[in-house]
């Protein structure tokens, strides 16, 4: 029994073997990479852009900073950070998925963003960076896909410089019953349908809806961050708690 639970994890609502999850998550993002940005806009009616903007503002990046955009996917945050930190700063876009990285790299190149951005294929659980290397780490809509979240948080803590901060932008738990119901209907009925229409891949978006529901709520994530030794951990609900922004420091 205990043996069993150690080696299994959630893939949406299914319980799967841990190794299997890594493979399945990869499958999901491989299959949606090309149309990922379009879906993002459709799914959130563009609101994801505002959530991301807010995250950038709260990151407080300054020229010369070194920033890690973890699970950065198609690079929305990287693009903005790149313009803030300037030529003396650096942004590392890290993702476990090659297809997402490739789409990201092409997109940023088209935007004219070159020079201070580096692309790294990496697993959040075992970051291939030296201790104390980043002023800021962000992980936007990525943590819920990570198999071992505690391991990922510890790994992030390690690569942060003392005084550095982590920002986690992630779907969370709507704060009111009504919103919660509407949101459930939206994500379990409308979302997979839209996913099917745009990417011809309803399963991936079914997974998305389920993974959102399985993700730790605001308070749980907060204590997970504290367990990983982050300090002054706070969170802010955005759009009625559909999304929450958690922040924590390494001192």
């Amino acid at each position, binding site marked *: 029994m205990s043996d069993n639970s150690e080696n299994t994890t959630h893939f949406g609502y299914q319980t799967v073997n841990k190794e299997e999850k890594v493979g399945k998550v990869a499958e999901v993002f491989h299959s949606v990479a090309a149309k990922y940005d379009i879906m993002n806009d459709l799914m959130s009616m563009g609101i994801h852009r*505002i959530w991301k903007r807010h995250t*950038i503002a709260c990151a407080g990046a*300054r020229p010369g900073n070194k920033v890690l955009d973890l699970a950065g996917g198609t690079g929305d945050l990287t693009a*903005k950070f790149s313009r803030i930190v300037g030529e003396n700063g650096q942004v590392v876009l890290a993702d476990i998925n090659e297809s997402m990285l490739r789409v990201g790299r092409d997109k940023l190149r088209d935007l004219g963003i070159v020079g201070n951005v580096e692309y790294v294929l990496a697993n959040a659980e075992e970051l291939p960076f030296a201790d104390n290397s980043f002023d800021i780490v962000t992980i936007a809509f990525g943590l819920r896909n990570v198999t071992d979240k505690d391991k990922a948080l510890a790994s992030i803590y390690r690569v942060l410089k003392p005084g550095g901060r982590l920002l986690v932008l992630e779907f969370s738990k709507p704060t009111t019953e009504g919103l919660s119901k509407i949101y459930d209907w939206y994500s379990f009925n409308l979302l997979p349908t839209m996913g099917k229409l745009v990417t011809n891949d309803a399963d991936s978006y079914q997974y998305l809806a389920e993974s959102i529901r399985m993700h730790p709520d605001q308070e749980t994530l907060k204590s997970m961050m504290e367990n990983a030794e982050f300090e002054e951990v706070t969170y802010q609900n955005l759009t009625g708690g559909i999304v929450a922004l958690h922040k924590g420091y390494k001192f």
Partner: protein
Amino acid sequence: MPTASLVSGLIEHSINYWLKTSGHNSSAPKKLTGKIFAIELTDLSLVLVMQINEQGLLNVYSPLEGSADCTIKTSLAGLQKLQQPEQITALIKAGEVDIDGDVSLAQQFSDWLKGSLIYWQDILASFTGDIAAHHLSEIAQQTKQLASQKSADAKRIFSHIVWDEKRLAPNPLELEEFATQVQQTRQAADRLSAKIQQLTQKIEAKS
């Protein structure tokens, strides 16, 4: 909160669109690159954080995290009044404006931003030009009147910007003064030529 992020996003998009189409971004002062300016509008409870990036475009964010190189705290009305730099001291004394940090940076920043307005001339000129062309075509009198009304409005707006904001063109009073002077000069010249003619006639009569 997200509303502020929406507002800052809209501002960023429109300013950058303007800076790009006018090409003014290429003249961004190097000294200002990366500097952070925060404008806190007390009546809207809104903070706008602005930064000129290396492309000469603006990053606009909200809220402010950490410190800024220059923070200006004022109301919308106060911001309007700040357009006249000579008022700054008075406004600070009256408590309408609070400035923290390097004021000269903020001044340069606003000068550069306002400098882009110079390109309005071209755009407005093409606009009034269109309406003039409109005049020439065969259309009903009413439409004509409307068009000329619009043209007058546009010209008024145009001249307002050109002489009031930038003082590129003389304002109407200056123009009137100039006209009077021209008139006087012409009268003087007329008198002079009359006098010369008189004298010439006298000389001719004597000889």
